């Protein structure tokens, strides 16, 4: 892990507080959504595998604050935070996780494939590293179409070992694409620390391609937002950049993972770095009190409950309609059912 850079905040005074409060809202939204999912998963209400980003919310909130709706992102298996912060429909999100016909993906994709093209969220991805080349192509499209947008590739530290990482870093640098690489370095790839998987740091790797890199505290949303704003502007005008966010995976690799392989002390220490806690302290120092925060929490809880209720009441997807989603328009003739 490289030494994180910790700059000052972007602004000060009233504006800064308002901005930070907006970021805090985003953090809380992600956290509460995931906690809700965790409970529903334990209750057997959410099917399949789910990978929660609890402890990593500041990356999503901070980076997405620097993006326009036209900017595109490609995400990972741990994609809820990215999707929510990019502004995907909350109703559509819960309905998808509960496999309803009203889900964003109409129950065909689930947690590992949440996507909302209308807000430039090109999809979570079940294949480690695959989002990198999707973002690369999206950045290429933005440049070709001269639409001023940028693309963002999110990936974990485990994905650093995939060959696609190298191919995409090289091509992005070679073509000076408007592509922001965001690494969420939580120290883990599934059940093995990435220190046992990587012989290099992202800092040194990025340097090889001449792509400017910065490593920051990914759990401090103010820090993430400040850096992301600056770097996204550079990406828009100059070309690729790497933003490495040092962060913490609080839950297991997926829900249901008891994390027996983890040092209990390490786990216990994580709460200090909790992004909500860090942001709340900053807000307190800025004079924003508990009340403002709990209002946000209450409001968000209500939104989530409404979304969950709507999802629960929604119909299940129909098989025939799903068949019609394989191709655009008429289906090819095929035996099958």
């Amino acid at each position, binding site marked *: 892990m490289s030494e994180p850079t910790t700059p000052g905040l972007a602004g000060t005074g009233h504006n800064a507080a308002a901005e930070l409060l907006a970021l805090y809202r985003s953090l809380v939204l992600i956290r509460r959504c995931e906690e809700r999912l965790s409970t529903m998963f334990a209750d057997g209400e959410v099917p399949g595998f789910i990978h929660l980003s609890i402890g990593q919310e500041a990356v999503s909130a901070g980076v997405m604050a620097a993006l326009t709706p036209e900017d*595109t992102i*490609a995400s990972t298996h741990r994609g809820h935070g990215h999707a929510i912060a990019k502004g995907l429909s909350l109703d559509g999100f819960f309905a*998808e996780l509960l496999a309803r016909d009203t*889900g*964003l*993906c*109409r*129950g*065909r*994709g689930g947690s590992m*494939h949440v*996507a*909302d*093209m*209308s807000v430039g969220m*090109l*999809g979570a*991805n*079940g*294949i480690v590293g*695959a989002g*990198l*080349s*999707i*973002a*690369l*192509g*999206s*950045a*290429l*499209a*933005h440049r*070709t*179409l001269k*639409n001023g947008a940028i*693309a963002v590739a999110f990936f974990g530290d485990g994905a650093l070992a995939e*060959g*696609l990482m190298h*191919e*995409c870093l*090289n*091509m992005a640098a*070679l073509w000076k694409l408007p592509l922001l690489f965001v690494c969420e370095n939580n120290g883990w790839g599934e059940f093995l620390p990435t220190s046992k998987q990587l012989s290099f740091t992202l800092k040194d790797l990025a340097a090889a391609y001449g792509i400017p890199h910065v490593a920051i505290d990914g759990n401090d949303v103010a820090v993430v937002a400040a850096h992301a704003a600056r770097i996204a502007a550079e990406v828009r005008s100059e070309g690729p950049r790497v933003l490495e966010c040092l962060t913490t995976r609080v839950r297991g690799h997926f829900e249901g993972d008891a994390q027996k392989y983890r040092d209990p002390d390490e786990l216990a220490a994580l709460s200090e770095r909790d992004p909500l806690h860090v942001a709340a302290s900053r807000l307190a120092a800025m004079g924003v009190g508990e009340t403002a925060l709990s209002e946000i929490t209450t409001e968000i809880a209500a939104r989530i409950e409404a979304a969950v209720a709507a999802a629960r009441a929604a119909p299940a997807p129909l098989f025939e309609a*799903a068949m*019609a*989603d*394989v*191709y*655009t*328009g008429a289906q*090819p*003739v*095929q*035996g099958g059912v």
Partner: protein
Amino acid sequence: MAEMRYLRAINQALSDAMAADPSVILIGEDISEAGGAFGASRGLRERFGAERVIDTPISEAALAGAAVGAALSGLRPVAEIMFMDFTTLVMDALVNQAAKARFMFGGQRSVPMVLRTPHGGGLGAGPQHSQCLEAWFAHVPGLKVVCPSDPASAYGLLRAAIADPDPVVFIEHKALYAMKGEVPDDLPVMPLGQAGILRQGRDVSIVAYGAAVHTALTAATQLADEDIEAEVVDLRSIQPWDEATVLASLARTHHLVVVHEAVEAFGVGAEIVARMVDIGFDELDGPILRVAAPFMPVPFSKGLETAYLPSPERVAAAVRRTLA
């Protein structure tokens, strides 16, 4: 009608598609400055610029994945993979991303990309530069697969593939690049999924695609000397394939032989047989036979390769056997 080579027809289709739609871009290795390893994109950089005809590093996985991302973001990329054997490196982009995006995102967006690649032997290029792997792609829901046999269909199908909203694997045959054929002056687009009947006949139906169509036609000529009239169906599209035309032909002839250059076992022919046995069982007056490559990598030596490739003689023998 004008005479045109297969390679030129592909070049023309790329050029016309790019002229018609500014969102069409080409991406691949050595396709821009060099005009393509086989010359398919010659002159297009000069005409459309390096921004739309893009040379990539030797990074197949990323270039194919980039095509998916670009297709999701407003472009219509046509990617070239220099030899079909190298599609082993782009399977994730094609199968887990391109093919599934529309479905797994609930129909939010289609993936209008084409992956062009040449398959086939006959050049002594050996085991890693001659394979016919189309059966893999035909087995993947969400992909379409096309394989033209002559210049007119190469042009017409490539235009259709580029215009199609879904990902299409467009397979050319290296040994056909130099082939000349008649192409209508107005260069018509040919719909995907429709077979063509290249020769009519009452006794047996021979279904083939790509270069094997010519093997079938030669066999049909030989068989005519024995008073066996073979109908030759050029499949053109492999996924979706034109069941109706094949079934109608079978219903006329009651005998069917399927020919392709890919390995017989678990190849495209197996599906055609299986489907006809299901929906056309009552039409069958003899076994449906396949003529295809043996279960062996494509060998380097000319003699071995010739023995390996399906021949008109083997097709004729299969016809005689099913008629017996």
